[in-house]
C-alpha cells in the first residue's frame, strides 16, 4: 500500500515539476518571436536585445522541460507498468504524433538559438514560430492522452480482463480532450505571461526609466490580458464538461455531498466527509446548478450517490479547485485593471507603482493555478488510473521500497528548482544586451 502511495507521489511530483517548464516552453517562444518580429519591423535595437535575453531564458527552461518530460515517459512504465501494458496501444496515436511535435520543437530551437548569423532573418523568425507551434502541439497530444484516462474509449474489456477491439483513432478523437486542451493552452500562455510581466515589473519598480523593460512588460501583458479574460470562459466550459462526463469528480470539486436541486456554488470551505457537508463556505444559492447544468432547478448529484471506495479525496480536490479559481479571479482583476486603463487612458498600459506591485505579486499565481488545476484533474480521477476501468492500485509496479526512488526524485528536483531559480536570477540581474560568456562565438547578432 505504501509503495503505491510513494509511486503516486513520485509521479505527482515529477508532473508538478515538469508542467512548469512545459508551460513556459509553450508560451516563451511565442513572446520571443513577437519581440523578434517587432525588431524586424521597427529596427529598434532594444527589441533585438530583448529577443536575445528571452531566447536565453527559453533555452535554459526548455532544456529542463525536455529532460523532465523524458523522465515522465519512462516513469509511466517504471511506476505503473500494468497501466502502460494495457493503455499503450490504445493511446498510441497522440503519443506517436507527440514525438514529431517534440522533434520540431527541439530541431528548430537548436536552429533558432545558434544560427542567428547563418540563415536569413525571415527564416530565423520562422524557426522560432515552428518552436512555438511544435510546443503547443506537444501539449495538445499529451493532454489528449490524459483526456483518455479521464474518459476512456476506443476498446472493450475481454472476459479475461485484457483490452480487446482496440481503436486508437476513436481513443484519440475524444470529446473530453477539447476542454482539457483549451484550458491547458490558455493556462500556459496566461501563467507564463504574468510570470514574465512580473519579472519586468519588478525591475521597472527599481528602474522606472528603463525603456527596454517597459517594452518587455508591455509585450508580456499583451499576452496575459486576453488570456486572463478568456480563461474564466474556458474554465466554465470545462466545468460543465466535467459535470457531464465525471459527475463524481464534479461533486468532489464543489464539495457537494448531497444530491439536491438548487445546489449552491461554494467559495472556500472545508469538506468534512464524516459529517457529509462542506463547512465555512460562502454559498450562492442555486448557482452551482445553474453553472453546471444551465438551470437553477437542475439536480446536482452529490458524493453520496457513489460508494465511498470510489471517491477521490474530497478535501484535496475541493481545495485544489478553490485555489485555482481564486488565482484565476485575481489574475482576471489585474487584467481588467490593465485593460480598462488601456481602453480609456489613451491606449497605454498602467505604469503606476500600485499596478506594477499588483503584477509582481500576481506573478506566481498562474503557475500556482496550473498546479492546483492539475491536482484537481488527477487526484479527482482517483482511485482510478483509467476512469472506471482500472484502479491505480492494480496498475502500480510490484517493486518494493518505492520510498527510495521517490526520495531521490524529490531531492534531485528540489535541487534543480533551486539551481534554475539561481541561474535565472543571475541572467535577469545582468539584464538584456550583455552576452553570456561561453556563447560569444555563435550567438553574436547578425549584422543589419
Amino acid at each position, binding site marked *: 500500500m505504501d509503495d503505491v502511495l510513494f509511486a503516486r507521489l513520485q509521479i505527482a511530483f515529477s508532473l508538478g515539476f515538469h508542467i512548469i517548464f512545459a508551460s513556459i516552453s509553450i508560451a516563451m517562444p511565442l513572446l520571443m518571436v513577437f519581440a523578434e518580429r517587432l525588431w524586424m519591423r521597427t529596427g529598434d535595437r532594444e527589441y533585438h536585445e530583448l529577443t536575445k535575453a528571452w531566447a536565453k531564458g527559453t533555452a*535554459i527552461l526548455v532544456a529542463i522541460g525536455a529532460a523532465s518530460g523524458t523522465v515522465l515517459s519512462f516513469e509511466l512504465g517504471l511506476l505503473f507498468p500494468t497501466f502502460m501494458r494495457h493503455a499503450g496501444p490504445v493511446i498510441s496515436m497522440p503519443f506517436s504524433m507527440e514525438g514529431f511535435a517534440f522533434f520540431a520543437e527541439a530541431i528548430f530551437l537548436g536552429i533558432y538559438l545558434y544560427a542567428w548569423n547563418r540563415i536569413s532573418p525571415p527564416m530565423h523568425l520562422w524557426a522560432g514560430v515552428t518552436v512555438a507551434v511544435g510546443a503547443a502541439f506537444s501539449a495538445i497530444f499529451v493532454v489528449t492522452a490524459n483526456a483518455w484516462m479521464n474518459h476512456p474509449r476506443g476498446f472493450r474489456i475481454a472476459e479475461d480482463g485484457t483490452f480487446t477491439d482496440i481503436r486508437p483513432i476513436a481513443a484519440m478523437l475524444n470529446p473530453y480532450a477539447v476542454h482539457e486542451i483549451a484550458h491547458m493552452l490558455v493556462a500556459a500562455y496566461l501563467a507564463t505571461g504574468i510570470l514574465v510581466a512580473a519579472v519586468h515589473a519588478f525591475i521597472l519598480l527599481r528602474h522606472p526609466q528603463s525603456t527596454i523593460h517597459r517594452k518587455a512588460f508591455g509585450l508580456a501583458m499583451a499576452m496575459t490580458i486576453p488570456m486572463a479574460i478568456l480563461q474564466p470562459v474556458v474554465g466554465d466550459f470545462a466545468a460543465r464538461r466535467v459535470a457531464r462526463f465525471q459527475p463524481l469528480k464534479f461533486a468532489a470539486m464543489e464539495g457537494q455531498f448531497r444530491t439536491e436541486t438548487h445546489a449552491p456554488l461554494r467559495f472556500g470551505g472545508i469538506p468534512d466527509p464524516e459529517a457529509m457537508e462542506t463547512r465555512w463556505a460562502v454559498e450562492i444559492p442555486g448557482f452551482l446548478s445553474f453553472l453546471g447544468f444551465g438551470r437553477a432547478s437542475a439536480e446536482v448529484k452529490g458524493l453520496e450517490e457513489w460508494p465511498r471506495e470510489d471517491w477521490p479525496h474530497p478535501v484535496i480536490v475541493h481545495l485544489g479547485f478553490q485555489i485555482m479559481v481564486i488565482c484565476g479571479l485575481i489574475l482576471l482583476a489585474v487584467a481588467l485593471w490593465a485593460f480598462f486603463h488601456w481602453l480609456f487612458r489613451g491606449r497605454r498600459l498602467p505604469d503606476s507603482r500600485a499596478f506594477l506591485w499588483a503584477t509582481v505579486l500576481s506573478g506566481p499565481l498562474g503557475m500556482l493555478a496550473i498546479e492546483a488545476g492539475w491536482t484537481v484533474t488527477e487526484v479527482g480521477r482517483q482511485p482510478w488510473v483509467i476512469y472506471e476501468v482500472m484502479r491505480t492500485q492494480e496498475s502500480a509496479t510490484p517493486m518494493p521500497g518505492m520510498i527510495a526512488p521517490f526520495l531521490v526524485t524529490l531531492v534531485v528536483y528540489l535541487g534543480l528548482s533551486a539551481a534554475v531559480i539561481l541561474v535565472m536570477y543571475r541572467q535577469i540581474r545582468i539584464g538584456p544586451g550583455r552576452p553570456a560568456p561561453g556563447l560569444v562565438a555563435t550567438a553574436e547578432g547578425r549584422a543589419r
Partner: protein
Amino acid sequence: MILPWITATIILVALVVYAILGGADFGGGVWDLLASGPRARRQRELIAEAIAPVWEANHVWLIVVIVLLFTCFPLAFSVISIALHVPLALMLLGIVMRAAAFVFRHYDVAGDPVQRRWGQIFAWSSIITPLFLGICVGAVSLGSIRIEDEVVLTGYFGPWLRPFPVTVGVFTLALFAFLAAAYLTRETSDPELQEDFRSRALMAQLWVAVLALLAAFANRADAAAVQLLRGVWPWIFVVLAIALGVAVTYALFRRRYKWARVLAASEVATIVIGWGAAMVPYMVAPDLTLQEAAAPPHVHLLILIVLFVGAFTLVPSLLWLYRIFKREPIFEPVERERARP
C-alpha cells in the same frame, strides 16, 4: 505477421540513430571529463560548441524508441520497466543532470568556479547514462530476466548486476567516447585540437575492441546466457564491424577525418544492428518474443502511417539542422598568445 517485424526494425533504426547522434553527445561528456594538456580548455569549448545546437534534437530519438516500444510492444515495455527499474532510473538521473548541467554551464554568468562545478556534473552524468543504457541492453539480451504469465520472477538487481550486462555498459561508454572523438576531429580546423582527438579516438577504438572481446567471454561464461553469437547473421555483423573498425583506424591514422567520421558512425550502426539481429526473435530473452509482446496488427499499421506521414516533416528539418551546423568545421583556431615550450 509481418507488421510487428517492421515496427521492431524501425525501433532498431531509431536506436541506431540515437547511438550515432545522441551517443556522441554523451561521449563528448567523457572527453570533457578527461580533457587534459595545454589545450584542455579549448577541448572543452570545442565539445560544448559541437553539442550545443543539436543535443536536444538528438535526444528525441530516445523518446521515439520508448514511445514505439510502449505503443507497439506494451508487454515488453512493462516487463523491462519492472525488471530493470533500477538501472533505468539511474539512466534517467543521468539524462536529467546532463541536460541541466549543460545548459547551466552554457548560460550561467558566474565566474570559473561555478562553471567548473556544472562542467563536472555534466561530465559525470554523461558517463552514467551510456553505462546504464548499455547495462539495460545487456540484461535484456542475456536471458537473465525470467517471465512467467507476464510476471517477472527474477527480482530487481539479479538480472543486470552481473558480468555481462556491466561489461556491455562499459563497452557502450567506450563506444560513445570513440564516436565523439572521431567526430570531433572534423568539428575544428585547428590542427592541434584535431591531433588531440585523433589520438583519443585511436585509444578509444582499442578500448572498444578489448571490451567487445570481454563481453563475448562474459556472455559465454554466464549461467543464464542466451548465446548471442548463434547462427550466421550475428557473425556477419561481427566481421563487418571488425572490417569497419580497421578502416576507421586507418582513416584516423592517415588523418582522413571526413572518412573517419562516416566510418565511425557506420561501425557503431553495424554493432547496434548486429545486436538486433542477434536478438531475433526475442524482445526480452528468453521468455518474451517479439510476436508475444506485440500489440494487435492494426495498431502497428496505424503507427506506421503516422511515422510515414511524420517523416515528411522530420527528414527535411533534420537535414536542414545538420546542413547548418555540421557540414563544415566551424570551430576556428585561435591566435596562440603564449609560445609553447
